[in-house]
């Protein structure tokens, strides 16, 4: 089948699926559900195919075919072929309730290694740099104007540093849930903590507002792109 014909059919199908998804504006209907099921099914199948082509075959199957079963027991094959095969087979044992406990070993390995990587990266990549950045907001470079620097520039930097420090501190104090218990049994936070938490709540609200605005902007851009696509599809279908 010639290429332009495939593109044309693909464009028509894409346009129909787009209209089916947009039909949710009217309400939940069969067309929207059909489009959703199609997307989930196609995405899953495609992910399975990608997993086979990019992971299973090059990592497990191809080496086994290339080196044969004897390659599993070689010095190099034990680490790169035998152990991956054993862990993969143990993972398959989780399919059966009777043998699912044998699949705990690869799962534990995956979870443990993943947690260690995430925590380590979080500390060195996010926690320490952000804490240092918040501390430098009120450092000498921020507080003292440079030689010959305009006052407006220095004031802008100073205010920015103060706002950054206040936002960081107040937001952290908002998530500090420690409180004192009075003799009457009532638990309350100190006035300073309450005030800072209130300020932190304002900064958090501003952050979520900006995120919501960004999401709305992205959605409008996507809608405009889809409407433009439909217009081109209709024009193409009408032969324009």
């Amino acid at each position, binding site marked *: 089948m010639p290429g332009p014909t495939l593109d044309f059919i693909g464009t028509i199908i894409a346009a129909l699926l787009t209209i089916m998804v947009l039909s949710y*504006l*009217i*309400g939940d209907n069969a067309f929207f559900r059909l489009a959703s099921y199609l997307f989930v099914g196609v*995405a899953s199948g*495609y*992910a399975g195919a*990608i*997993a086979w*082509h*990019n*992971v299973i*075959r*090059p*990592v497990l199957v191809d080496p086994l075919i290339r080196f044969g079963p004897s390659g599993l027991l070689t010095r190099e094959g034990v680490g790169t072929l035998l152990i991956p095969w054993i862990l993969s087979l143990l993972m398959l044992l989780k399919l059966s309730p009777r043998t699912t406990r044998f699949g705990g070993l690869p799962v534990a390995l995956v979870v443990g*290694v*993943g947690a260690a*990587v*995430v925590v380590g*990266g*979080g500390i*060195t*990549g*996010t926690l320490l*740099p*952000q804490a*240092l*950045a918040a501390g*430098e907001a009120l450092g000498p470079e921020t507080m003292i104007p440079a030689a010959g620097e305009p006052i407006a520039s220095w004031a802008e930097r100073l205010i920015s540093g103060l706002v950054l420090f206040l936002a960081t501190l107040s937001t952290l104090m908002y998530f500090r849930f420690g409180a004192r218990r009075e003799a009457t049994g009532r638990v309350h936070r100190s006035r300073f903590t309450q005030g800072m938490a209130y300020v932190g709540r304002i900064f958090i609200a501003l*952050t979520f507002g*900006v*995120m*919501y*605005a*960004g*999401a*709305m*902007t*992205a959605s*409008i*851009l*996507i*809608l*405009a*792109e*889809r*409407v*433009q696509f439909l*217009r081109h599809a209709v024009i193409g279908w009408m032969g324009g």
Partner: protein
Amino acid sequence: MPEVRCPMCSAPNPETADVCGECGARLKPLVAGGDLGLPHEEAGAPGPPPGVEDGEEDWLARIRSQALTSGGEEPTEEESGESPAPDWLGRLREADSGYEEGPPEGVLPEWMDEFIAAGDESEAAAAEDEGLEQAEQVPEWLARIRAKQAMQKAAIPEEEDWLERLRHEGEAEIPAAEEPPSEIEAMPPSEALEEPLPEPEAEEAVQEGLAAEAEPETLPAESPFFAEDLDALTEEMPLPEVQEEGPEAPPLAPEDLEGEALPHVPALVPEDQSEVPLVEIGESDLEGVELPDWLEDLRAEIPVSAEEPEEEVESPDLAPATLPSWLEAMRPTDAFRPEIEIEREEEQPVESAGPLAGLRGVLMAEPVVAKPRMATAAAAQLEVTERQYAQAELLQRLVDYEQQEMAPSEGPAMRIPFVRWAISLVMLVAVLIPFSFERMGMRGYPLPASISPDLAPLIQRIGDQPVDRPALVVFDYTPGYTGELSSVAGAVVGQLTQRGYPIATLSTRPTGPPLAERMFAEAAAAGAQVSHLGYLAGGPTAVQLFSIAPRDAVLSGFHLPREGEEKDPWAIEGLRQVQRLSDFGLVVVITAGTETARTWAEQTHPWIGDTPLIMVLSAGAEPLVRPYFEAADRRVDGILTGLPSAVSYRQLSGQPQLAASQWNAFGTGMLAAQLILLAGGAYGFISWLIRRAQG
């Protein structure tokens, strides 16, 4: 001039006065039998009260005179060193000394008979030195009551009355009450009542008692009777019974003195209650005495119980046990009859079951076992707080709700989503209108005039990088964001292809490789060197592994050229020199999620070296990624987000602009969204004002 003290306020008044000059109280009560003048306290010795006929000798005056004759003058209160008594006690004394009209000489009153019959000679002889004075201060009615109680105590063996033992324990602190006189102990209790002494013998006993007054050294310092009186009189409690029950006993109300109202212990209730000797107080005995209010109430109730003593004298063996209130509260209250009437044997039912079948007079277990009874007072008084009560109510509601039969629920009412339709229609029209701008002769939205200060350094950074090293472009977003990110990332991709970078694509999502292929399809068709490394499985761990050793993390590519499909993807031209992440000339991450952006910023930093990391973000992810860019130790070297920035980027980098229809549609769509938000906010504010006005 003789004075008369007012019984109410103790103020001195002339003897002839009928009412008190201070408080107006009557000094001469209206009592039949003559004038009951008050005694002459100033005389020091009690003389015959005025108004008493000469032929009638005051028996009490005789006793006093004899006592004075033998013991000297009666000391006054000040001389005796006694503390002044309370007002009510003074009134009692006055009433006792002035109002009482004793029997004629030689005739003993009834209470004296009983007193003598009880064999309490020591009590009868208590009219010695200080005892005589106290006897004058104690009213006769009170003395009778105490004498009667003393007789009852003597009549009931201590071993059988546990309550009396309790009382004695309470009285143990009183030294004078510890040891009763030997005469009382030696005398059998029943003899005192069953064999009353004849009057001559009683008179002799009185004479003996009076004779004993002359020998005070041979008598105990304080007889139990007067010791008890002293304690009772010095106490402010009005009832002697209360004072006898020990320090823990609460005061009894005057109405408790009534026999019918007194609680009884069933085990101690005699078969015939009428035989119980009660206090013999006649109405005539009380008429001449001005009594306190509480005693007046008692006096009004006395006739009811005074009818019984004639029958009660017959069998005074047992007395009704009076429980103090604190002991009564501990007593289990049974629902069944507290006193079991024992029927005659022929009237008793025959046992029909068990080993005692056929026998009469068998104790019926049914009243004890089968019939329900009330719990004890302590267990019945369950203390429930308001919170517990509320929880119990809530639990009860839940239980009741579970038992309710649910009515068949009607489906939700079909509501037409007018608001949603209206907003959808407005947004669709808003993004469709720009396509007609040209026909309508309208100009579209101008390109953004203000350019973000972050764009110029980004463009310069990409433009300054040497093109001998490949650029890695990571597609980490789902197909749903293609409409946005393809437009935004197109600016960076266009600059990369424009400069001739060898490009390698990668994705940590299975749907990423086709998106990358689509993005670079046009560039690849134009001859650009593009290699798709495909899908990188493993999340953050795989990213770190790729940063350390890209060749070990990616073993196969995606849609590689057919001739290289079976080969190592790193053998493709442009990727051969790559051994680690820092060997790439540029790393661009296109993502719509903050987690993915953070993963790449965190995991690649230790191994990325001087290679710049550029983030192309969806508009919603920028706020959480920007701190990595603005920090002093940057983890991200450049950010490009949003369509306006992409348009500005194309302007600054000299790339062809997007279609005007898309830019205009984005502008009208944003305007419509802002108008809808303003309308919604105004509607909410007005609704709030209306609700507030309506209260």
